[in-house]
């Protein structure tokens, strides 16, 4: 009977066996400045396929800016970004989506006027192709397409256990649920790389636990690579495979959680030792 007892779950990275896991995205010596203000200075790190990568650091460390660089919302003055082996040219923000990068936002950026269902459906936009004339007719192709994507979305709703709020306008939802819906919206894009900007900000302990569970499940069920920002050390440490630590726009540590935790620089940064 003990044959039953389950093995420890493998991260897809390990699962695919191929010794050195492939690098999904690499950031080389990237610097970013607004006017005179330097937000990011000469940062390099990589994100491997199938891992959960955390970017942490005190407030104003340039975490969000880093994310915005990764999904092409900001354009670094220096440095290169390599996405799946090819150096990325300057691109429009909306191109990131078609490359398979989805994200959530620090302060929830849901579409307030729409229901939970529509918000998550909106994540399918890129995958829907029926043109205006089919849409006008609705009956036939457009409707069929809508339904086929609705199915996908319902799976996500089921996955995130938000059936009860399916048809509620997101504006009325409590903060914790809004964050969950936003995650759902990002998942609907079936991204290769999922960027989470402080997924647990402003949540109570229970909500945090739920959210961590969902993040891990996403990573394991769908094998989605995840890069997340968080300044709650605790959460990050038991969630992520590797951690980058930023402080004042500079990288001060990079490696597996326990290593990073031990690093003096990090401790200083968090204890706020003057620079």
């Amino acid at each position, binding site marked *: 009977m003990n044959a039953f007892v389950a093995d420890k779950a493998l991260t897809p990275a390990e699962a695919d066996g191929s010794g050195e896991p492939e690098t999904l995205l690499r950031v080389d010596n990237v610097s970013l400045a607004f006017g005179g203000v330097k937000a990011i200075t000469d940062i390099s790190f990589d994100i491997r396929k199938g891992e959960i990568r955390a970017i942490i650091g005190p407030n104003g460390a340039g975490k969000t800016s880093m994310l915005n660089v990764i999904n092409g919302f900001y354009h670094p003055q220096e440095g290169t970004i390599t996405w799946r082996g090819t150096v990325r040219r300057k691109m429009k923000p909306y191109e990131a*989506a078609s490359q398979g990068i989805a994200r959530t936002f620090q302060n929830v950026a849901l579409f307030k006027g*729409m229901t939970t269902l529509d918000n998550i459906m*909106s994540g*399918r*936009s890129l995958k829907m192709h029926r043109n205006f004339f089919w849409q*006008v*007719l609705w009956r036939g192709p457009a409707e069929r397409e809508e339904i086929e994507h*609705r199915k996908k979305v319902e799976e996500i709703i089921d996955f995130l256990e938000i059936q009860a709020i399916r048809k509620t306008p997101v504006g009325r939802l409590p903060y914790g649920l809004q964050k969950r819906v936003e995650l759902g*919206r990002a998942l609907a894009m079936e991204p290769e790389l999922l960027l989470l900007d402080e997924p647990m900000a402003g949540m109570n302990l229970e909500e945090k636990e739920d959210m961590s569970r969902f993040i891990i499940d996403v990573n394991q069920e769908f094998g989605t690579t995840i890069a997340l920002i968080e300044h709650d050390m605790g959460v990050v440490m038991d969630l992520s495979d590797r951690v980058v630590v930023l402080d004042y726009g500079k990288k001060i540590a990079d490696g597996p959680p326990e290593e990073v935790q031990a690093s003096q620089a990090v401790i200083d940064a968090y204890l706020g030792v003057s620079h």
Partner: protein
Amino acid sequence: MFYREAGQFKTSYKADQALFPILQDRIGIAAILLIAFVVIPAFANDFFLTSIMIPFLIFALAAIGLNVLTGYCGQLSLGTGAFMGVGAYAAYKLTSIFPDANVIVMVLVSGVFSAAIGAVFGLPSLRIKGLYLAVTTLAAQFFLEWCFIRIPWLYNYNSSGAIEVPRREMFGFIVTGAEALPITRYFVVLCITAGIAYLMANVLRGRIGRSWMMIRDMDIAAELMGVRPLQTKLMAFAVSSYICGVAGAMMVFFWLNAAEPSSYSIRLSFQILFMVILGGLGSLGGAFMGAAFIWILPVLLKFVPGALGIDIAAETVEHATFMIVGALIIFFLIVEPHGFARLWQIAKQKLRVWPFPY
């Protein structure tokens, strides 16, 4: 109370995504259509048709058009009047260039021209947002108005500078021109408005409608989710202008018989905007309610004094009407900034949970 939804369950997404998933709503709509297509034609007199129903439907259509742009895509426009004008003049030219072509087809085609022009004036929306954009749409308004005056070709060089609608027949009925019967015009207008409203409902519940609302609610998020801002906004401008264009064309062809540039002045733009705002941004039903309010109220006001046996100079009534409408607009913005549509929603919700408060 009237909404007894127990026992209404959906076994397919098709049914769940229907325009009116609730049985009672379907009944209601059926009733309204019945009234519009049967009852009114049967009992209404010419006055009611020509000075209430026809303009009401035309404005409702225009309001739908503007709603697409402002209510659903969040792009404020003050150029509606001009876009309607483009439709009107286009239709006029088309009918005079192709005298034998079916006039209704011409009216529908004329919208294409205003769509094109609307798209052009929509280009700035990529860089310009909110009130700034609103002001730039004034450029469209005044520039186009100017064109209507200064380009004689548009009104076939006739001395009056106005466009007169030629007489056209269809299946033996006179549909345009002075002799056309109100009832005929009414049916044409009703069919076109209802038809376009239905088609828009389809667009709005699908991918395209969603992408517009995404832009409206949170343009940055929308863009990062792969929605191309320019394309999406331009499409909204085009679609909106098309509908407004058709409405404008109908205005002259099936209601006024003749029109001059001033018919499509900024006043008209505001009128339509009011219909949209009071009706409720982002609601097709609201467009109709708004149109009804803004159009029918003044008409009623005109007749109130007469009814009360008081005789006041016409223009005094005119002024009074202006005052009252202005005041009412402010009043309604204060009580319910989201318009009649929201009021209806609230009422409906109350009826659904009746007798409970929530």
